[in-house]
């Protein structure tokens, strides 16, 4: 297992280089001039602009610029500064915390609601409950986050507060602590909950048809034990993969949700930095996101081996 982990981490190196280079090129190819963006509506003095260009290596070839950047990250842990001389690592630090809180809230909701509903549907297959759960997942899958976000913000965040007087789901940024994340977390998790519900339902239904379930019944075990121990333990395996891989999606997909709910997270920052052509910030954020994605996948693969004894990595 140890060797496997090391091999996987080594494999992550080219992925990391590739992803950062790709992002670097894309940001470089964006139309517009970062120096002009720094001055807003005013036109910069050409001489000053030239000095700035030199200072930020903007006149050097693309690959050289990339090398300056990536060597700083690798050898000094220095993600550089943005065009206002604020270190990128400082910009990211607080923002990643917000996004991580949001993504983890979403992940927990996904696991609890998605798996819960899926199990419920699987055990009531073909009955009214099952049909209703399936129909509502279809609704969540087909309505975009943009719509669910604004609708829930209005209904549960604003109207509910007006009607009841109690601020159950605060929607004004992160001022209310962990409760600030409840509604945005749910909106972010929405489609994933729906997919996970369907995946859980299929997975358990399939598992319950397996021969070893028949054996467990023939052993004289209660239905509760047959499903709860023998069925669930096997049905969970594909769900863990989905959940782990989804953590990356949730963090990357937080842009819309953070904008709707005014959460100062990484998504919001990414959006602004792309807008301002702040290459170092964009690449920095994406690099960390790629890293998180790779680590999440590694953890999933290891969990997989833990859950399914038939899988051994060597």
């Amino acid at each position: 297992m140890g060797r496997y982990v090391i091999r996987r981490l080594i494999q992550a190196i080219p992925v990391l280089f590739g992803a950062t280079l790709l992002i670097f090129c894309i940001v470089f190819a964006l139309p517009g001039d970062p120096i002009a963006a720094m001055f807003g509506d005013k036109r910069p003095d050409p001489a000053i602009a030239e000095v700035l260009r030199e200072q930020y290596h903007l006149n050097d070839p693309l690959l050289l610029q990339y090398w300056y950047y990536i060597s700083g990250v690798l050898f000094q842990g220095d993600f550089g500064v943005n065009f206002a001389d604020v270190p990128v690592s400082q910009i990211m630090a607080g923002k990643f915390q917000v996004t991580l809180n949001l993504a983890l809230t979403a992940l927990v909701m996904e696991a609890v609601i998605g798996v819960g509903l899926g199990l419920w549907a699987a055990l009531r297959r073909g009955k009214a409950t099952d049909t209703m759960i399936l129909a509502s997942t279809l609704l969540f899958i087909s309505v975009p986050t943009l719509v669910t976000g604004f609708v829930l913000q209005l209904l549960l965040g604003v109207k509910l507060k007006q009607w009841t007087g109690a601020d159950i789901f605060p929607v004004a940024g992160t001022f209310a602590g962990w409760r600030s994340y409840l509604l945005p977390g749910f909106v972010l998790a929405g489609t994933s909950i729906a997919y996970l519900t369907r995946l859980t339902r299929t997975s358990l239904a399939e598992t319950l048809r397996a021969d070893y379930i028949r054996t467990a019944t023939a052993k004289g075990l209660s239905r509760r034990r047959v499903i709860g121990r023998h069925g669930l333990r096997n049905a969970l395996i594909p769900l863990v993969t989905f959940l782990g891989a989804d953590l990356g999606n949730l963090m990357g997909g937080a842009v819309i949700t953070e904008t709707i709910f005014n959460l100062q997270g990484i998504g919001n920052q990414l959006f602004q930095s792309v807008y301002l052509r702040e290459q170092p910030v964009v690449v920095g954020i994406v690099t960390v996101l790629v890293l998180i994605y790779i680590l999440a996948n590694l953890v999933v693969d290891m969990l997989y081996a833990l859950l399914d004894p038939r899988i051994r990595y060597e």
Partner: protein
Amino acid sequence: MKKTSADVLPGLSEGGAPGDHPLLAVDNLHVEFQTRAGVVRAVNGVSYTVGPGETLAVLGESGSGKSVTAQAIMGILDMPPAVIPKGEIRFKGTNLLKLSEEARTQVRGQRIAMIFQDALSALNPVFTVGWQISEMFRVHRGMSKADGLKKAIELMDRVRIPAARQRVHDYPHQFSGGMRQRIMIAMSIALDPEVLIADEPTTALDVTVQAQIMELLAELQRESRMGLILITHDLGVVADVADKIAVMYAGRIVENAPVHDIYKGPAHPYTKGLLESIPRVDLKGHELYAIKGLPPNLLDLPTGCAFHPRCPYRQDNCVTDAPPLHEVSGTRNSACHYWREVLDGEHQ
């Protein structure tokens, strides 16, 4: 206190004399499956009995209803789609079909146990074999983990799995096919059941291992005097171990008899066909005999005798009249209008 099966089945004393009742009696059992395409009549009036220490071989091709009957005895049919419109399954005189689900659960695994064809898929892949065997003791006998594991090692020794003490922590996929089937057997005999149903226990194994598994089953049966129902489509397996044979076709028993009688001379054309389709060394080079035609469509069974479309002895009344189970001798029955001709070997 945990309920034992004796509490739930007051009529059933532990290991006591069965009195007038046979150990297990299946009586005129019918099983149907409600499907979209129509009603599948999988079992149509099957009756057989098994006594202590007795081995009944239930013989028949796929779809003959032999496994469905066994699953009905165990109570592991999915109902729905399965329904049991008629019949009784009596265990020491108690009709199991009339018991509550709770009482039924107490019989399953403890008094009547079952082993399945493919042990790899029948064992749970994510638990160690020790966990799976000891689960019987933990759940039904309230034993601790450690005690249950000790019992599991004893059982694995008893079914002759080498190095049981180490292997108890292994997972099913780490065993060979024969060893896996031994684990399946160990698990099924854990609580000393009075009846063991073996559903094609050797089909997935190679021939030498088949013989070892059959030998093991026979030996365990001698030690414990349990009744054994051996479901198979392999006549070769049956000859050595069975006391009596019930041959099934299209959900009915077409012939039942002591094993020697059947091999001496079948009293039903289907049994005869089965015996003749065994490859024989003295007929090497000849074409293998096969029963003509296809197995019946259970959705739309032939009129009269279900075997008539494939039968070399067919007469006009076979198409219209279903034959009753004729008494050939005191211990032998045949569901053929012309059993005498078949028995005399008059081929038509």
